[in-house]
């Protein structure tokens, strides 16, 4: 088993140091600018459905194409909304991964340097 062949280990001061680096703060900021709006958007979009269906059933029964009504079309649109948000997130997350990789690389070399000095 080579499960923890090179497990990263560090003490509290090292974790605190990484948390304070500019790179890490940038990563958090860039994640927030995507995740918070995306989360709020899908919550609002989703809960509009039960709210409208629950409180305005007549309006939602408005027929759009043949018997197909607003309620069904809005419900169906939720699937495409979810897929689209997921797709956008995956695209944005590739960028997060790149930044995270740099932070990991820096952290690992920092620990190694420390060990060499000891």
């Amino acid at each position, binding site marked *: 088993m080579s499960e923890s062949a090179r497990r990263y280990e560090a003490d509290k001061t090292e974790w605190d140091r990484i948390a304070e680096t500019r790179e890490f703060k940038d990563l958090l900021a860039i994640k927030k600018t995507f995740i918070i709006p995306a989360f709020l958007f899908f919550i609002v979009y989703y809960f509009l459905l039960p709210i409208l*269906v629950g409180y305005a059933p007549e309006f939602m029964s408005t027929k759009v194409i043949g018997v197909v009504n607003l309620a*069904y079309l809005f*419900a169906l649109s939720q699937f495409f909304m979810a897929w689209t948000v997921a797709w956008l997130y995956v695209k944005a997350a590739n960028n997060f991964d790149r930044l995270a990789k740099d932070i990991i690389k820096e952290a690992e070399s920092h620990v190694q340097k420390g060990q060499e000095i000891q």
Partner: protein
Amino acid sequence: MSTALVMFLIFIAITVGITYWASKRSAGSSAYFAASRRVTGWQNGIAVAGDYMSAASFLGIAGIIAFQGYDGFMFSVGWLVAYLTVLLVVAEPLRNAGRYTMADVLAYRLKPRPVRAMASISTLTVSTFYMIAQMVGAGALVTLLLKDSGISYHTAVIGVGILMIGYVVFGGMLATTWVQIVKAILLMGGTILLSILVLAHFHFSLGDFFNAIGHVTYHEKGQEIVKDFLQPGLRYKPPYGALELISLGLALIFGTAGLPHILVRFYTVPDAKTARQSVVWAMVLIGSFYIMTTFLGFGAATIVGRDFIATHGGTNMSAPLLAQALAGNIFFAFISAIAFATILAVVAGLTISASTSFAHDLWTNVIHRGVERKPGEEVLVARVSAFVVGAVAITIAILLGPTANVAFLVALAFAVAASANLPVIVLSIFWRRFNTTGAVAGLAVGLLASIGLILVGPSLMAVDPPTVTGTARHLIQAKAWFPLENPGILSIPLGFLAAILGTLLSHEPSSEHKFNELLVRCNTGLGAERSGSQ
């Protein structure tokens, strides 16, 4: 021997083969609990779908749409959109900072023993209740589907129980994963076939299909009724229908990301990026499946009809009866076998998440303070507890009997996951000030509020006419105190409130002390558990 039974036996043979193969690759904790973290993104995505889409969604939703039209489709929507919470909020941090259970992430900076003990109680509650609902359903279903073979409810429950225990005890997470993958592929295949047949029935004209949905005919109290089944309001009616819909939505959107058997799946992949990819794969499958419930449910309503389904086994038989109407007995047998596979894969997932939590959280970390006294002890304890959990579920399912009203147990599982698990996971990842008192209070209040509100809600409290007998009767014969079947709208805020108040009313510098470490780990994957080599 009926065709359905033959197909059941083929599925059992395949899964037993998988278990035998997996049993040789399940030595060691990481292999047993997390399939050595070598499951690929698409494999895990399919497995998540197989773990998630229960009999309640395959048979239950087809039935609800067949009987109550559009309102049933609201479940389908919530069950997919919920994965955005999983994707955006929990999957990656969990994979980065945890090992085997959701409690791993909580225990990082909080006092491990009280937090793990409470998280484990919550996990065991969610998993066992959900499992009992599935087992009762399985027993009733197998007796209906195999009624020509003379298999009794007891035999069916014991059979399902032994199989799920077998997968988990011998094959661990690896066997569970592949049973779920096989099931998901079968379920998707069956659903696509059924949808095409429904469309073919309408000469591949969506217009004709939707026109038929607009004029569904059935009889009620001797009167012929023609209804537009696309119109909302057949299930959720005033005065509480709207609140019930919102409460259901809250439980689904926040509950899915707190279901222990879904969360443990993210430990089986090599890293957070793969965890993310697997959520996306799962969303493609789950979304396609739930869109197709349009054809399953409305197809059953228009082609088979409420009247026929009601006299041939009831709502849950809608999908199999649709298959029979469209393509005869062989296809009925095939769809029945898929329903059976569906239940088995879900109960196996529940069993492994319950036993992992017992062994890893309660046994190793609470009772023995994080020290595994002998190598292999944790896995041994997990195997024994899988056996015990399975035996308990079999016993309760037999005691309750096939007519027991157990649908509320599924609502309860989602409510506990949303009100107890999710608030605590989210606050521990995102709130520096969060501490042990807050976590324990949030878990306890979320759990108790969900159970309490369901206990005094319409699922368990109602006045039945004397014609309803035995376990089908409501537990408390009085008017319900809480008007909603889904407690989410009240229990979720209560869970969050307790977690926040508990935190603000106590001081625990050590939890803030280690927040930076958790923050860096969750967001970068630095120091995360790696996949093992075999």
